[in-house]
């Protein structure tokens, strides 16, 4: 999914930095003897999976059965079939995983070919997921890869629940945030607020930007999720509009002027599509005109793409290194053959090489992965009674609560226009407002605390209704 600015001189030579030693690149001929190939291919893997060790996880049971089970039962989803995704599919397939699926909404572009090594010139225009799956299956015997050429939002949640581990090779915060919310959404907590292992959906997230990269392991409920640490991402640089309009000083200013101001002026109503080459070309030509007017050098088509899509050139070797780290973590989570990375690896190859592992901590009040506060209710409790209860609840003491459930705003204290629209819900049973499910998550905002310490807050609540079928399950029994 990563897009790329081609032809930037400082990065052209980067492919030669790392020689890819995996057999894929050397053009091996199909093996005549599949068995011989199998044993030689799993030789290194066997060293990890067949022998006991000191650094292994507590549940590790070495043996051929483990290796076979990994092949047979573990299903892995790779999100993204771009620079990282290509590497991930190849690495995971060569690490012995047999059941892989890959999802990506993009088609192959010429500028991808320098590093998205599964693609050839004749593939330009075809869906990345489909070509990537086909190429890896051609080269690695025994692996089955199911491609999904669609947006991640197009899939039902059940689709994601089927996988043992989700591996991310993405280039956007939005997409990471979405998958993170989906994966954390499967997590359930018991009545003591302990995460239930069988509902935990592990994620391994890779990311690269030029010569820098990261690999992290997210075990929802145990290690920080993406949302717990979203502050790690630097805010996007945005130029003041008046600078763009009046006092441009750089090539990027000229490009953003064409993209943000001139486009609307000329195409009233039609929105700019960064994936449409004609749109991009138009922005480039306008930017070039403006640059000439102000005597500013440096506007090129590739810079235009870079500025508009906010991208930094991708480096094949960085992708290879980060992907290798991610594939290894995936193997460790699946097999227990070693303790997992705990929990955030950064890699920097800008000058020499620097890697570091940082153990970030969970935000215990995280709205996405945190347990929230368990509240048990009778099915007859109305929304109004629930709001009163939230005010008296010792862990909440929240006055003036507004309540939202799965995107439906059940009650809003403000502004008046929304208060009016939601007021009629107050007299209805919460059970009905929550579509008669025995349990569910609601979020409340209001003012909490006492005296000087009163402050506005947003809290996650796990609501469970007493005496409803399906609630006899151990996970909700026992009460708060």
């Amino acid at each position: 999914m990563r897009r790329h600015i081609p032809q930037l001189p400082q990065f052209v030579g980067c492919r030669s930095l790392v020689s890819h030693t995996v057999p894929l690149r050397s053009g091996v001929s199909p093996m005549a003897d599949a068995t011989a190939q199998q044993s030689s291919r799993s030789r290194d893997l066997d060293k990890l999976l067949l022998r006991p060790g000191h650094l292994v996880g507590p549940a590790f049971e070495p043996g051929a059965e483990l290796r076979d089970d990994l092949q047979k039962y573990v299903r892995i989803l790779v999100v993204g079939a771009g620079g990282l995704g290509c590497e991930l599919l190849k690495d995971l397939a060569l690490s012995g995983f047999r059941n892989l699926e890959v999802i990506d909404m993009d088609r192959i572009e010429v500028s991808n070919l320098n590093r998205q090594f599964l693609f050839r010139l004749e593939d330009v225009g075809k869906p990345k997921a489909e070509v990537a799956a086909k190429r890896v299956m051609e080269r690695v015997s025994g692996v089955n890869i199911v491609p999904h050429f669609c947006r991640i939002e197009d899939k039902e949640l059940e689709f994601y629940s089927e996988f043992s581990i989700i591996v991310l090779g993405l280039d956007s915060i939005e997409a990471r945030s979405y998958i993170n919310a989906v994966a954390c959404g499967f997590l359930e907590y018991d009545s003591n607020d302990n995460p239930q292992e069988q509902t935990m959906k592990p994620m391994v997230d890779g990311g690269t930007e030029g010569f820098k990269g990261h690999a992290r392991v997210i075990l929802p409920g145990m290690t920080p999720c993406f949302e717990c640490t979203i502050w790690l991402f630097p805010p996007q640089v945005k130029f003041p509009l008046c600078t763009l309009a009046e006092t441009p000083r750089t090539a990027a200013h000229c490009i953003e002027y064409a993209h943000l101001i001139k486009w609307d002026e000329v195409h009233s109503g039609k929105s700019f599509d960064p994936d449409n080459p004609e749109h991009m070309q138009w922005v480039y030509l306008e930017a070039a005109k403006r640059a000439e007017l102000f005597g500013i050098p440096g506007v090129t088509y590739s810079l235009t793409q870079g500025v508009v899509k906010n991208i930094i050139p991708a480096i094949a070797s960085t992708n290879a290194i980060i992907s290798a780290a991610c594939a290894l973590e995936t193997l460790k989570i699946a097999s227990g053959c070693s303790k997992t990375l705990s929990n955030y690896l950064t890699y920097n190859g800008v000058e020499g090489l620097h890697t570091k592992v940082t153990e970030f901590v969970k935000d215990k009040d995280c709205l996405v992965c945190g347990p929230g506060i368990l509240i048990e209710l009778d099915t007859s409790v109305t929304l109004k009674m629930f709001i009163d209860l939230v005010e008296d609840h010792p862990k909440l003491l929240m006055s003036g609560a507004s309540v939202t459930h799965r995107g439906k705003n059940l009650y809003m204290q403000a502004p008046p226009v929304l208060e009016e629209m939601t007021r009629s819900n107050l007299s209805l049973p919460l059970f009905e407002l929550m579509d008669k499910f025995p349990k569910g998550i609601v979020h409340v905002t209001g003012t909490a605390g006492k005296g000087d310490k009163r402050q506005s807050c947003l809290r996650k609540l796990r609501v469970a209704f007493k005496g409803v079928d399906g609630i006899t399950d151990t996970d909700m029994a026992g009460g708060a």
Partner: protein
Amino acid sequence: MARSPIPPEILSPSVSIRTLSPKSQISPLISPLLLSPLRGFSSNSEGIMIKLFKVKEKQRELAENSNGKPPVKKQSAGELRLHKDISELNLPKTCSISFPNGKDDLMNFEVTIRPDDGYYLGGTFTFTFQISSIYPHEAPKVKCKTKVYHPNIDLDGNVCLNILREDWKPVLNINTIIYGLYHLFTEPNHEDPLNREAAAVLRDNPKMFESNVRRAMAGGYVGQTFFTRCI
């Protein structure tokens, strides 16, 4: 919308991680394999390695249980934070908010400002707000729907307000932005022009600027540009 996945701060060896968050802990520069199991929850996290096969059945059960449920709408963290912002709105009586898509779509709304002071007294100006799923990491996109003769708002509705772009911070909220927009009408600023002509008139001839604003708001031409009535 590709965004940097890498926090540059923590990639630079010279920068201490402590500057980022008091919550973060520092690991020595060692292989992840050698990380001490004594730290925090890392001993816990080993537990997950994973009885993947053993829990297989349970996972299937859960998936089956979820059948028959209506499709679950994913509520993004951005939506939740916005819910908080909206439920805490405290608008002056000169500003009002509306939700064209109903009460369950808070991500797209309109704010109407009726300045009670200054050049724009008596006018009615509507702004559209578009909120991203990663709000407040990213600022709302705000445009002025009403064509206005204003030094800091261009004829296509682009608004030059620092907190919408270069000075946006996640601690700011919708209320702050609405106050910022209101401020633009009481104190238009000729130093950050988006409408250069209007800015020049405001700077050189405030009396003429005032009469231009009145003419535009009443519905009429200022120079070559026609403005629809907004009083």
